């Protein structure tokens, strides 16, 4: 885990002081809401439908138990006892009072956290593989690169008013667990033919109203030229990205309109110039950061066997536990998707319990996943049963990872001022319809994602089944998409046809899953069957 040094701490402390002053000027009336708006947005403070919402950055989704405990305490002190983990590996609080915001930022700063650049047309919080440092298939840990990116992007003076927001994701495995190609920049750390570490840079992916998969713009980039290369990528975008239409302002539109080759040419030209300026942190800095992500002290004698005599426990192990690179260890994913619950929500007590378990059994480390779940990346297999019992007692042992009940959903019209339709009730109805564990497991891996508007915070384009809430003449209406994926085989879903009512879309999903059950070949997931047989049989069953 990266720990702040005095420089990092001084920067977040300065931010708290600055924002405290700005809030007091707003409360005193010397700043109007219009003047205050860009300032609060730079601190992740949105004015939503019912209250202020504060979005807290969790850099590359990694945090320790002390930080996690603070997130629980903040939920108790300043919210209604809940936090909402998001698809951006962050946490949001939905019931914040403006006058409390400086105190919350001060509490966050006391554990090395902040809300910097969680909003606005700037470089947002970098996301990464949530199994980083633990996955058996990892080529190299992406977190040291992500931390370099965090520092470089923090208060970057040239890129504070880009045409639109800018999101970077980084992975270090062939398996893409971060939807990397659906980001403005997606970086893959890999080994070249000679065994040397290199970076592959994808630019111009995204969801929103124009979903696009990012093309490769640069292969074989030396790792310690990453910052210089991204300076070049961002500068070309800042200068030439469209500013005439907010919906065409993301970098994906620039890359699409001028073409990947022309964008690459412009970046390479800028990159050649930037390399002469000496902007890259030195190898010693990378080494300093990397040392902080060294493996924890795994016990080489940790037993590999798991006692599966408790059937409920065995079910959870099969569904929510992944293989680890160290013998005798495993990766646990805690589902925040109980039947009928709000995807990504956790109570203050649940958040603190997860912190305690990480402290007691998990080398003090937790991750937030873009699927709105929590990961304990390093636990002994021998401790799994004890962990499961503690989770189960707190309603956190739902065995549905990657099943239809493991729904990604945005906050929707229940909270969000941009939404056209509610997402949460749809998610709740689907999870209740498919509540029975045996039925879910029979359906197998099925990633279902719901967005309450075209901005696609719920990643509906990338769901095996996606739902998009729209407003049709003042009535909430739900479009259904099939065939999306955010994994290494990234694809964008196709709309089935006319939309549905809230209950109608749940019925349509059930009919689609029945087509799969009837037609699947041996070993096929829902997505595989869809890709093989195409949309027609699904369409017929849904509308026929």
């Amino acid at each position, binding site marked *: 885990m990266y720990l702040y040094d005095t*420089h990092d701490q*001084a*920067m977040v402390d300065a931010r708290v002081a600055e924002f405290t002053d700005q809030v007091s000027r707003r409360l005193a009336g010397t700043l109007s809401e219009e003047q205050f708006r860009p300032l609060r947005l730079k601190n992740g403070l949105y004015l939503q439908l019912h209250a202020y919402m504060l979005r807290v950055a969790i850099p590359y989704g990694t945090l320790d138990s002390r930080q996690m405990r603070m997130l629980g305490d903040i939920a108790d002190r300043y919210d209604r006892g809940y936090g909402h983990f998001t698809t951006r590996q962050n946490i949001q609080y939905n019931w914040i009072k403006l006058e409390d915001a400086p105190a919350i930022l001060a509490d966050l700063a006391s554990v090395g956290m902040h809300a910097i650049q969680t909003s606005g047309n700037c470089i947002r919080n970098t996301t990464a593989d949530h199994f980083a440092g633990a996955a058996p298939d990892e080529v190299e840990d992406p977190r040291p690169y992500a931390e370099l990116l965090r520092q470089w992007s923090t208060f970057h*003076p040239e890129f504070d008013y880009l045409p639109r927001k800018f999101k970077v994701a980084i992975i270090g495995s062939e398996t893409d667990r971060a939807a990397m190609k659906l980001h403005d920049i997606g970086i893959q750390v890999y080994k070249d033919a000679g065994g040397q570490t290199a970076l592959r840079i994808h630019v111009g992916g995204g969801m929103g109203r124009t979903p696009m998969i990012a093309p490769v713009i640069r292969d074989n980039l030396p790792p310690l030229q990453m910052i210089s290369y991204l300076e070049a990528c961002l500068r070309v975008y800042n200068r030439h990205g469209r500013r005439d239409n907010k919906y065409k302002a993301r970098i994906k539109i620039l890359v699409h309109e001028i073409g990947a080759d022309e964008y690459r040419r412009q970046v390479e030209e800028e990159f050649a110039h930037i390399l002469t300026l*000496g902007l890259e*942190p030195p190898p010693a800095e990378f080494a300093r950061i990397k040392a902080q992500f060294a493996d924890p002290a795994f016990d080489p004698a940790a037993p590999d066997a798991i006692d599966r005599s408790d059937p409920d426990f065995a079910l959870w192990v099969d569904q929510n536990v992944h293989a680890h690179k160290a013998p005798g260890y495993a990766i646990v994913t805690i589902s925040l998707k109980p039947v009928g619950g709000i995807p990504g929500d956790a109570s203050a007590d649940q958040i603190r319990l997860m912190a305690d378990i990480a402290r007691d059994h998990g080398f003090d480390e937790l991750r937030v996943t873009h699927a709105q779940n929590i990961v304990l990346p390093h636990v002994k297999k021998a401790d799994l049963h004890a962990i499961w019992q503690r989770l189960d007692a707190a309603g956190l042992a739902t065995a549905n990872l990657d099943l239809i009940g493991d729904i990604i959903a945005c906050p929707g019209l229940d909270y969000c001022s941009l939404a056209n339709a509610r997402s949460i009730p749809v998610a709740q109805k689907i999870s209740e319809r498919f509540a029975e564990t045996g039925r879910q497991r029979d359906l197998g891996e099925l990633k279902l994602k719901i967005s309450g508007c075209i901005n696609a915070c719920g990643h509906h384009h990338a769901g095996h089944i996606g739902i998009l809430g729209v407003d049709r003449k003042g009535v909430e209406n739900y479009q259904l998409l099939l065939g999306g994926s955010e994994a290494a085989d990234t694809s964008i879903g196709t709309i089935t046809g006319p939309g549905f009512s809230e209950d109608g879309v749940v019925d349509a999903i059930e009919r689609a899953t029945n087509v799969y059950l009837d037609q699947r070949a041996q070993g096929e997931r829902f997505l595989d069957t869809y890709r093989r047989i195409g949309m027609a049989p699904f369409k017929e069953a849904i509308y026929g």
Partner: protein
Amino acid sequence: MAETLIRLRDDAASTAPVVPLADLGAASNASAVRLMPGDDARALLPVLDQLDLIEVAFPAYTDGRGYSAARILREHGYAGELRAVGDVLVDQVSHYVRVGFDAFAPDQPMTREAVDQAIATWPAVYQRTVDGRPAIWALRHG
């Protein structure tokens, strides 16, 4: 025309007429030019030596192209006055300075005191740019 002018440099301000980039070719002896957001700052590189003042227009503070324009000019050695003009906000002043601006002509009133305070907001910086401040990585590794 903005009424406020705050300069962070000691030399006398240019009194030459400020010409738009498009007119620079015709006015070959011009020493002051104004860049609009869509103008290519690199078009000035061949004539940087003859310029004492480059104004960079911010018609709206949300249009950040001027930050890149300024930094490019400094990266290529421009040492004259670089003035941010228009919807220039005190809360952005530390960023303007970090990309090379050393004068401000804001539409809204702004005091020198507020500018100095804004510049002092950050105890250190994470990036090396054109303002001469060492990045935090340089402080760490001497």
